[in-house]
């Protein structure tokens, strides 16, 4: 399926979505397609909104942001998000914030279809005072007080992986973040892959499979689909772009010009990649292979 088809079918106005990937494997290709299709009123969930949600928020796609750390990692604030919070530009945005563990716990409860998740957290913090969804419960066994956060069950999870087969059996290596929980918590799962491989390749190394195909709704082949995020073993994080984003996002006109050139100005990810082949080449990963293991018996 193309990214346009997948977003068209599985991301609707007003939906709750999660594009996961902690620094690693963030599907910018999906975020850009959501902007191109002018989705509105999304409830956008992610531990770290990162540049991809900054772009979607600045483009007017997001009604509510559910998150735990909102910055440009290593490079400052997310200015489009700040404009939405502080000035209501392009429109006001609701925020619902947790800590990382709180977001991980919400998706874990969602994945296992439990109503909430208990955790030893938030005591003495002001976060529960500004987020009524962070509650306290008494343990029925020990009587101690614990924090509790509600399950998060998005309509759609979008997860980029290094390789998948056509059925969506998906393998990841390197940082795994909270992708497995996000996928299992959601009604629909879009798997986006750097490489489409034969099912035999997946079956030859089953320990690496993070998401089984039978919970996946759509598979999209999208090389360079994470840029400026990265895919371990394929291409490095484009740290220069993350730093450059500081100046782009700070200025509303530069922000709009960026979207015009790199999002609205291209039909799809392939065109986006084609426009910057030199950069793609310069980010190509070095080789660090591991020893094969024997799955025989």
């Amino acid at each position, binding site marked *: 399926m193309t990214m346009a088809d997948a977003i068209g079918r599985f991301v609707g106005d007003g939906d709750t979505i999660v594009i996961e990937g*902690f*620094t*690693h494997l963030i599907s910018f290709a999906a975020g850009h397609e959501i902007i191109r299709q002018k989705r509105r009123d999304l409830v956008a969930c992610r*531990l*770290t909104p990162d540049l991809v949600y900054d772009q979607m928020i600045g483009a007017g796609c997001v009604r509510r942001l559910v*998150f*735990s*750390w*909102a*910055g440009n*990692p*290593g*490079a400052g*604030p997310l200015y489009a*998000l*700040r404009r939405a*919070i*502080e000035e209501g530009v392009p429109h006001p945005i609701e925020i619902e*914030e*947790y*800590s*990382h*563990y709180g977001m*991980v*716990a919400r998706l*874990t409860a969602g994945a296992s279809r439990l109503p909430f998740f208990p*955790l*030893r*957290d*938030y*005591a*003495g*913090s*002001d*976060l529960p005072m*500004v987020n009524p969804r962070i509650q306290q419960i008494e343990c029925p066994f020990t009587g*101690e*007080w614990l924090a509790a956060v509600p399950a998060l069950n998005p309509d759609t999870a979008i997860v980029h992986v290094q390789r998948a087969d056509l059925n969506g059996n998906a393998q990841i*290596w*390197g*940082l*795994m*973040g*909270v992708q*497995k*929980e996000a996928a299992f918590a959601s009604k629909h799962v879009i798997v986006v892959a750097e490489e489409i491989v034969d099912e035999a390749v997946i079956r030859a190394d089953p320990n690496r499979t993070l998401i089984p195909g039978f919970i996946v709704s759509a598979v999209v082949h999208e090389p360079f689909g994470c840029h400026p995020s*990265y895919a*371990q073993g394929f291409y*490095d*994080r484009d*740290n220069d772009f*993350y730093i450059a984003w500081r100046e782009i996002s700070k200025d509303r006109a530069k922000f709009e010009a960026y979207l015009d050139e790199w999002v609205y100005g291209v039909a799809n990810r392939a065109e986006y990649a084609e426009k910057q082949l030199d950069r793609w080449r310069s980010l190509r*990963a070095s080789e*660090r292979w591991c020893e094969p293991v024997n799955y025989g018996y």
Partner: protein
Amino acid sequence: MTYSTNEIMVTASSRLLADGEVTFVGIGLPNLACNLARRLHAPNLVLIYESGAVGATPERLPISIGDPALVTDSLSVCSMYDIFCNYLQGGRIDVGFLQGAQIDRYGNINTTVVGEYATPKVRLPGSGGACEIAILAKKVLVMAPQSRRSFPEKVDFVTSPGFLDGQGRREAFGMPGGGPSAVITNLGCYEFVEGEMTLVSLHPGCTVEDVRANIGWDVRVAATLAETPAPTDEELRIIREELDPQHLYI
């Protein structure tokens, strides 16, 4: 050799890490402190990054907490559920590093908002993993440059609890971790006495007057005040040539 304030913050923090400790590392200065300790007196320090890298040995300076260099040659890469549930809440983290826009008299840290939450003067990034690190790590080290604004008597918002409003409050809340054990600033080092931040050493050339001019309350000063040892030539060489050759943080 002359050195910057960031460099002495890194070396002073590095010396607080003992060999074999399991350390939750932040990006920037904490990352430099941990990797410096690992190259010198603490070769068995275990570096854990909230992104999922355990026993990381980064060959280049990580710009983000999820840098691919944290994965290459690490001991283990695990999910964030594992990191927060099994490692941190499971009591496996000896030292957590925190930074913050504001830290107060009792070691409470604010990384959420300056001003009111609903109408912030400045919206900051939020907790990330800091809230749970502050509650669950056996001890917490804080690195922060100090000024009257960044060291107020009481923070605008408690993102990550220290000793709340004094001694015994963590125990009352049932927090498993020990709370902040040291604060390292551009002027000196602090420890916590009865839950209150107490100046214990001054960096060379800094005075108690400098400290008082850059802190928002009448700060406690230890009876015997030490001088923070200056960075050695070897420490500076490692920081400048190996850890941060582009001088991004120093």
